[in-house]
């Protein structure tokens, strides 16, 4: 193979042409890791393929469509755009593929969305509406920007703190119990922190994940500058989407690496797990409940640091220097489980599909906005799994997951309780 120069730059789909061509349709992107295959049921991990069935709704099919687009065999049309966006970008395919091969599935799919928007065919109208709200009020709900820190009334923050708590739109506007709990937890451990108030813009996940990279970059740049200005070295968040966006997508958008960003991003569960080791947090209250934990995709298999790469691809596809591969091995998997297991009274049980094999709640990638019925369908499948293991409560570490599960429960009348892990921890330390 003649050498070619490629880079992990998502604005040019050609950078991922190799990955598109080299997919062999082993469907590692669809099935639960065969070692963990639970049997005839709960055996897949791609909501899109299970819901819509045709191969165009799978990672392997989308790669084929992207390749056909690159080669001029097809052009964007409504069905194509629909196939692109009926996907949570949950990363299950990417981790599954890298079990056996070294293909950049996730990036290729993101790149396809960026191309779709750049060519004027994407995103979906609902995504554009959210982009407008973000542009105007810097949050996904369109609420007044000035209301962003309303939840923090009466909470003591420290402008000199090295920790900045990035609250996110859902915490700030819709689920204020989560930031309140988070603040309490930080306080309980003696960790001072500050918040960015109305200077905190939507992290940009709804923009980036729907291919609106230019708009996402604006939001990102603002937040990066604000963090830099604040002098904080650590950004803590209780939202998995914000976590992954700040940690992974920001560097990705600017062709940088996570380590180049000048700040470290941690999720509340990482912080609490660390405090548990140090002995600075105590779970005093008994919570008698059988609970299970839902791995939010963005905190779990998609959360490994981004390492920008450019270089040569040579004979046999060998990269030089060796391209880094994020395989989902080092996601934040153990910390939330260790926390829950340490809370007295809790009877912890894992679901059938966990960690890198987890089934997405259904909300991500702009699905909840553009295809709410699909988002609910996906959540319902996960809730069946909760029932299957006999858990009374479902704990997650992402407000978007909580929101989507709650909607599904409201619609179905199920009696499963959904809680954010910050709320659970807060209950335990009160």
């Amino acid at each position: 193979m003649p050498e070619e120069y490629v880079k992990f730059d998502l604005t040019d789909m050609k950078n991922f042409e190799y990955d598109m061509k080299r997919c062999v349709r082993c469907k590692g992107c669809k099935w639960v890791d065969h070692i963990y295959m639970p049997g005839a049921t709960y055996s897949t991990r791609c909501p899109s393929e299970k819901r819509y069935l045709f191969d165009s709704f799978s990672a392997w099919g989308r790669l084929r469509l992207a390749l056909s687009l690159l080669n001029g065999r097809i052009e964007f049309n409504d069905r194509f755009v629909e196939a692109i966006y009926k996907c949570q970008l949950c990363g299950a395919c990417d981790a599954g593929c890298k079990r056996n091969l070294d293909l950049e599935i996730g990036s290729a799919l993101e790149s396809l969305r960026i191309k779709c928007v750049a060519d004027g065919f994407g995103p979906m109208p609902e995504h554009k509406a959210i982009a407008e709200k973000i542009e105007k009020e810097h949050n996904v709900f369109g609420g007044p920007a000035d209301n962003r820190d309303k939840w923090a009334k009466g909470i003591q923050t420290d402008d000199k703190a090295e920790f900045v708590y990035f609250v996110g739109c859902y915490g700030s506007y819709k689920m204020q119990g989560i930031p309140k709990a988070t603040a309490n937890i930080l306080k309980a451990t003696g960790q001072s922190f500050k918040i960015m108030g109305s200077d905190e813009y939507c992290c940009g996940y709804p923009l980036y994940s729907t291919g609106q990279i230019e708009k996402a970059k604006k939001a990102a740049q603002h937040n990066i500058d604000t963090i830099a200005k604040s002098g904080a070295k650590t950004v803590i968040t209780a939202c998995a989407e914000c976590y992954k966006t700040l940690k992974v997508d920001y560097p990705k958008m600017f062709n940088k690496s996570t380590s180049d960003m000048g700040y470290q991003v941690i999720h509340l569960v990482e912080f609490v797990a660390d405090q548990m080791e140090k002995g600075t947090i105590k779970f005093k209250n008994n919570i008698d409940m059988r609970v299970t934990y839902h791995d939010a995709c963005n905190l779990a298999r998609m959360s490994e640091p981004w390492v920008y790469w450019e270089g040569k691809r040579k004979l046999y596809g060998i990269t030089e220097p060796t391209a880094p591969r994020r395989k989902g091995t080092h996601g934040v998997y153990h910390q939330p489980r260790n926390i829950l297991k340490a809370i007295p009274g809790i009877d912890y049980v894992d679901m059938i599909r966990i960690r890198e094999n987890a089934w997405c709640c259904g909300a991500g990638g702009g699905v909840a906005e553009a295809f709410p019925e699909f988002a609910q369908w996906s959540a319902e499948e996960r809730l069946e799994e909760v029932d299957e293991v006999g858990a009374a409560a479902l704990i997650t570490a992402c407000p978007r997951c909580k929101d989507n599960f709650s909607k599904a429960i409201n619609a179905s009348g199920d009696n499963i309780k959904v809680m954010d892990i910050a709320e659970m921890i807060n209950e335990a330390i009160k």
Partner: protein
Amino acid sequence: MGIPQEAYKAMEDIVGSQYITDDQVIAQAYVGRLGHGKDTGIDLEMNVPPAVIVLPRTTKEVQGILKIAHRYKINYVPASSFWISHCAPKRPNSIVLDLKRMNDLEIDEENMCAICGPGVIFSQLQEEAIKRGMYTTTPGGGSQVSVVANHINWGLSPLNYRNGVPGRRVLGGEWVLPDGELLRIGSMSTSDDPFWGEGPGPDLRGLLRGWIGWFGAMGVVTKLAVKLLPFHDEGLKPVGISPHTTLQFPEKKRIRWYNFVMPTRESLVECMYDIGKAEIAAALTKVPQQWRYIAKAGCREDFWEGWNTNEARKSINNIHICRVMLVGYASEEQLEYEERVLMDIMDSYGAKLGRTRQSDNSWIKNADSATMWMMTGAYTSVQVTVDTVDCGVKGGEGLAREKPAFTPPLMDDYGEPGWFQVSEIGHMGYIEFLQYWDPNPNQENLYKKDEWNYIKVPTLDAEWGMFNAFNMYASPMNLTGKAYGPECRKWFEKVKAEFDPDKISNDPIPWDVDEYVDKVDWVNKEDYINRDWSKG
């Protein structure tokens, strides 16, 4: 272009509008480039998008679709897991029957069989079987392949050492013939119970499967019972995080792997014969050197760093690894007994027992077939001989001598004579000769990989008297179909003429290679068309 509107409408009425599409964007997702045979000439040159994709749920729906196809003379391609290049349409205006919705799985625990729809894959079945103290053979094709499809055309793996070749595990079922008529085979011919494979009189399983069978060119098997085999009852525990996941063996001595370093290749072969004769073990295989380097590598570049060394080059002739799995089906005592016998045998050859992890990443439940593409981006097996161990080894050594003339474009594997293993407790040996290459079309002489694959290897095998009938699907029928049997091609033609005279069931399979090589300039067809194979 496309199919008649009334045909589409009729199929839509059968399956419902959400399970059928003629959208040409969706169709692009079904254009070839899949699994075994990917990036070979046929895959690159012959695949076309389907006109319609339909997702049936029941046998009745499949019958309905096939009857419509028959009425309108529309070519159709049935596929379950799409893991071989035959399962992509090669004729314009074809229907793809994507069978993924036909995923019912029922286990008959008492009588040790599983009744599967074509959408059921091996890791699903294996898990359900292991839960009940049984197991099946997860084939080299991979855990992700269809249980039904694989049983009717392939199914080789080291577990066949105990479990037997797959043809013996095919039981009763439902087979929709090319014209849509339903044929119930085995015990289903006279009852609703598929637990037994033989029907009354001549066994029509002989028409259904084979080595290598029809690949959808003889209708659709919509339900098949397959035999399960007894396993131990301690279970296997999945551990680790991707990509380092594995099945941990129980502490009780009920299952163990052993890796032996044998002094010579000859001793590796001889010990396999001895192990078979002693009637011990549950799996028995040689470990090719490349696989060891793959296993150690975190990525492709790691592999090449290890492989591009003198040590690797020398390892082909200096390191001979025999991997043996023992299972205490009855008890721990059985395993201990077999271990003593195994050690007696291995000691007699001066073998050294190496460090062996007591877990399984591959073969029992997971078979990483996709990993084969990791090294170079393209792979295929050109020789798959099943006969005696000795026959397999000779074939591999012979091909290793011939391969340098085709390297490059083939990857230099330093003369590796192939992967061999034993089936049916030593009654059979099995070799697979593996090729890797860079599929980038701009390379010089890339056509030679097809020449090697489609023509050279099959010709050598037939000349040598090797049973590489796997190549029945990867060589011209005018070559292997003529040489083997002899003239087994005639029977394919007769069967097809009787049951599918209009050739609507996955045409041009199994004559696709003939059709392909007709169009290329690097094959002298006269060489094999006029050849008299009767004297060998």
